[in-house]
């Protein structure tokens, strides 16, 4: 896939992020094209989640962040999101004391949310609309988390480790949902599961030591075991077409 014909929905330049004075993102620069899935990769603790949070303004940040041609790095989180950014956080972060329906209602940003898409992708949630989100399984909570983002017309989705801690069956369902979503909205994806990355990602950005060390087509990285070993610390050799995640490769801690 060529990148020359693409425009970028998100550009990040010289991004620094801090949590309680501690530098967690250091001089990160990359682009996210306006189509497809861009995977943000790296070993645990390199700052992938912090980069996503910096883009949203959930942690202190400096640097230039441009969304659809507009600088957003001085905007508070809710304004960044209102410009059309959907966020699926690490660990789901559903509101456990609210019902499924209330979780979704809270996430609606317009008078005409895309309920049909959510009901098509996650029919289980329709059945469980009155159930407290805190009583759902991890997979069901992830569906609520994804549904909250997909309800709205977004320019970009930021999806942070959507398959973390889920069973292989649910990983497949989540992957399918993200594949469907990626047809209509570009996605910046943080993911540890290389099988999932193979299925979803068009491009990859690799962080190491808080900095970007590789940017390019997904195949360029995923077909190069030496690079995978060097950047992600994992051996690659699985069947790329497999959707069986019982033996998935994980980027180690």
């Amino acid at each position, binding site marked *: 896939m060529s990148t020359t014909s693409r425009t970028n929905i998100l550009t990040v330049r010289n991004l620094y992020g801090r949590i309680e004075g501690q530098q967690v993102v250091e001089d990160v620069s990359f682009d996210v094209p306006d189509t497809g899935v861009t995977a943000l990769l790296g070993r645990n603790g390199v700052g992938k989640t912090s980069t996503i949070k910096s883009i949203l303004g*959930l942690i202190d940040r400096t640097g230039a962040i441009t969304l659809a041609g507009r600088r957003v790095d001085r905007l508070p*989180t*809710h304004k960044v999101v209102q410009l059309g950014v959907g966020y699926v956080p690490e660990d789901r*972060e559903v*509101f456990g*004391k*609210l019902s499924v329906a*209330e979780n979704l209602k*809270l996430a609606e*940003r317009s008078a005409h949310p895309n309920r049909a898409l959510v009901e098509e992708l996650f029919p289980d949630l329709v059945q469980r609309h009155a159930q407290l989100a805190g009583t759902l399984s991890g997979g069901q909570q992830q569906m609520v988390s994804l549904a909250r983002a997909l309800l709205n017309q977004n320019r970009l989705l930021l999806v942070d480790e959507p398959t973390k801690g889920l069973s292989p069956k649910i990983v497949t369902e989540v992957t399918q949902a993200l594949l469907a979503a990626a047809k209509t909205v570009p996605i910046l994806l943080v993911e540890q599961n290389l099988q999932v990355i193979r299925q979803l990602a068009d491009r990859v950005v690799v962080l190491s030591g808080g900095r970007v060390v590789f940017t390019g087509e997904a195949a360029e990285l995923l077909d190069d075991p030496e690079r995978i070993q060097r950047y992600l610390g994992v051996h690659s050799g699985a069947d790329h077409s497999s959707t069986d995640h019982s033996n998935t490769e994980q980027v180690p801690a």
Partner: protein
Amino acid sequence: MSTIVLLLITGLGLGALYFLVASGLSLIYGLMGVLNFAHGSFLTIGAFIGWEVARRLSDGSWWALVAAMLTGAVVGALVAAATEFFLIRRLYNRHIEQVLVTVGLALASVALFEGIWGTDPTYVTSPSWLGQTTEILGARIPNNRFMLILVAVLVLVAIVLFLKFTRYGLIVRAGVENRLMVTALGIDVRRAFTLVFAIGGAAAGLGGVLASIYYGYVSAHIGGSLLIFAFIVTVIGGLGSLAGAAIASVLVAVLQQFANFYLGGTGDLAVVLALAAVLLLRPRGLMGAKA
């Protein structure tokens, strides 16, 4: 038997006052993590201005009392919203500064109230029925206790309906669980902060007018003295839990009344011991969220 009924119902009346103060404290802490030591000032100014209005309308009439309660609630709401907007908003997540500012505001406002209304209590004139008693199971219950209980129940129902059936109520309930995630859904949670301060201030202002009926006077220190017990109620009930605040208000006030009567005026001591017991045995309170 009549003594027990008297203590129970007067305890419920006092609990109603505690709830009107503690409900706001609990909501504010639950959503924003702010321990608001200036909350008693919202009560006091609500009481003073409410009775100023009543006095100018028709002292001792029912409609003057209603006007006083409405004025107290509105003044409490406005002062609380202004406090959040001008002082607290800049200090979220800076807990030491919040405590310093709210304690400072509480001290300064007492001095201001004493400067305006003097240091002596100002006695209030309420409708004569409130000063009479009604006999229940042989106990002669002051009528004003019934009004306190009724108003507190109405306030509780109103807050529950607001939380359950309005969009801002939904935002507040979600914000109590995870404030950052609410903003990450594109919601300006600061508006909810101001609104919750205003609701808490309204309940406190209304409580101020009712407290002055309970005590028979209003003074610059009326808010501060009730605030101490409201904090105890909030901690025992569980910080951030409205239902916990309601239950703890009743338990604390009834315990206080019984201890005062049967244990030689040791009500305040009994309440402090109950607080210590809860902190030792169940630090998150009766209905507080797990840490």
